């Protein structure tokens, strides 16, 4: 775009205006860029002790879209996900090089860990509701971040459960223990719990792999709706799921990001032969 503008403009206007215009358009382009990409990963290298788990990974996660990370076990996709909200900090011997930004801010320097994790919520592989009531589970996050009024909490709990499409099922048992729910309900409760702190990005770490097909379908449907308000990044082992739900897909192999692009293109017309082999089910 920028190049085109610079090439066309000189014939019509003075050189000085051209320079100015190209500067302006450059700025606009940058703004557009940052408006569309919510999180960016630049030259990320990650080590677990001596093991080089992610090799020079760079990609940007577009705002209000679902990005799927796929690849065989041990390829680093979950590792990348956990790096986005610094859950890897908890792993002993984990070292991160490179830059990760959230809305242009450095996630490892400009934002405090707790704030980052509030803004970048996470739903784990196994549903992990706390051993407390449904209500307290949802209210845990808001209370952590300073919301104390009962009326406010009530409202947040209802809104979050509604967004996670589980309000109707749970509205009569808010005071009951969350451990009594079915696996699928627990996972949607965990999504509601993550939504309750008003995150901007939602990370799903194989969040349907422990669930039955019906619960999985419900969560997939939910994810498709959530992307209107959130940026969703999901790790999945299920390629059909990536195809159904995601807009962009990144394929990882042994710590390398092999290919990143629109989901349709990556599945129907992959550039790299390794991607082609994986998405056609020849290995993995």
């Amino acid at each position, binding site marked *: 775009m920028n190049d085109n503008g610079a090439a066309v403009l000189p014939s019509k206007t003075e050189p000085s205006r051209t320079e100015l215009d190209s500067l302006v358009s450059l700025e606009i382009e940058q703004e557009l860029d940052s408006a569309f990409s919510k999180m960016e990963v630049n030259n990320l290298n990650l080590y677990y002790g001596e093991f080089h788990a992610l090799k020079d990974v760079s990609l940007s996660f577009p705002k209000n879209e679902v990005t799927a990370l796929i690849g065989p076990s041990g390829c680093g996709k979950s590792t990348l996900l956990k790096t986005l909200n610094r*859950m890897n900090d908890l792993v002993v011997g984990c070292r991160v090089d490179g830059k990760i930004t959230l809305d242009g801010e450095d996630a490892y320097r400009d934002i405090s860990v707790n704030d980052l994790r509030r803004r970048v919520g996470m739903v784990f592989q196994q549903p992990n*509701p706390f051993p407390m009531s449904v209500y307290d589970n949802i209210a845990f*996050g808001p209370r*952590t971040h300073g919301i104390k009024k009962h009326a406010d909490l009530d409202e947040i709990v209802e809104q979050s459960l509604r967004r996670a499409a589980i309000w109707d099922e749970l509205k009569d048992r808010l005071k009951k223990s969350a451990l009594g729910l079915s696996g699928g309900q627990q996972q949607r409760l965990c999504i509601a719990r*993550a939504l309750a702190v008003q995150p901007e990005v939602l990370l799903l770490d194989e969040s349907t792999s422990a669930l039955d097909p019906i619960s999985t379908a419900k969560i997939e449907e939910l994810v498709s709706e959530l992307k209107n308000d959130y940026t969703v990044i999901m790790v999945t082992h299920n390629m059909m799921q990536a195809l159904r739900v995601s807009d962009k897909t990144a394929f990882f192999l042994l710590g390398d990001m092999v290919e990143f692009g629109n989901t349709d293109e990556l599945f129907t017309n992959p550039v790299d032969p390794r991607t082609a082999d994986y998405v056609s089910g020849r290995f993995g």
Partner: protein
Amino acid sequence: MMGKNDTPLELSAVGATGAAGANAVGNMPPISKYDNVSPRHNMSVRIASLVMRGVVYLGAIVATAVLLLIVGYILINGVPYITPSLFEWEYTSENVSLMPALIDTVLMAACSLIIAVPIGVGSAVYLVEYAPRGSRFVRIVRITTETLQGIPSIIYGLFGMLFFVTALHWGLSLLSGACTLAIMILPTIMRTTEEALLAVPDSYREGGFGLGAGRLRTVMRCVMPSAAPGITSGIILALGRCVGEVAALLFTAGTIAQIPNFVGQGAFAFLDSCRTLAVHMYVLASEGLHMNETYATAVVLLVVVTVLNLAANVAIKKLRKD
């Protein structure tokens, strides 16, 4: 309907195994080793399992019988001698009242727990939740506590006498005794708390951290509630040791059967000597003048311990429910 649906499924299943089977049979002979197993094998297995069953039943019966025997013996010898005079406020060599000792027991146990529980639970929380996992320091602390757990109580008593009684000039007192007991039960509380915390799945911690909660909040709100029953049962164990301890207290708290005079002396009453129920029994038994009252005291001690255990169980059940 079902039948119709089943048939093709079955057919295809048979087909699949048939194909796989043909493949396997073509390459490998069937395993024939089982033909040569001697018929006595079954017999010996049956005998071994019978013997084992007998041994475990016998173990269970002996264990229960011993307990019943002891409790029964104490009850038969003690219950007839439980008299009102045994519960008089003041101890004299006439009434050999156990009331001061009963109150001292409660005081002693409460004081040692007040000292030991915060330190023990706190250090366990540090070891599990704060210290880097698998660090050398954690391993050293763990080995140390395990060793301390195995030390006979008389050694703690000796240390208490040299340090609290003599060096700190606290004398034979409630305070010296409570501090000594606190050191003695610290390893128990630490270890049980540690085990309880380690048993809490990491997913709770991840959940807390993942929502942007700090370490303190994650530990207190997500981890502690699940660990609470385990921690409580550890504290009960420690309490049991306090109530039953004699050796360590003889050296540090003395044997004067009196209730520390908090009304008259205020905080200085902590420096009064006192005699817990277990020590009281030891003294009575070694004097040999009041054997009947000794048994009566033993009955009371038994009741105290039983009530404590029941209360603890109720507390744990309640914690589990919430």
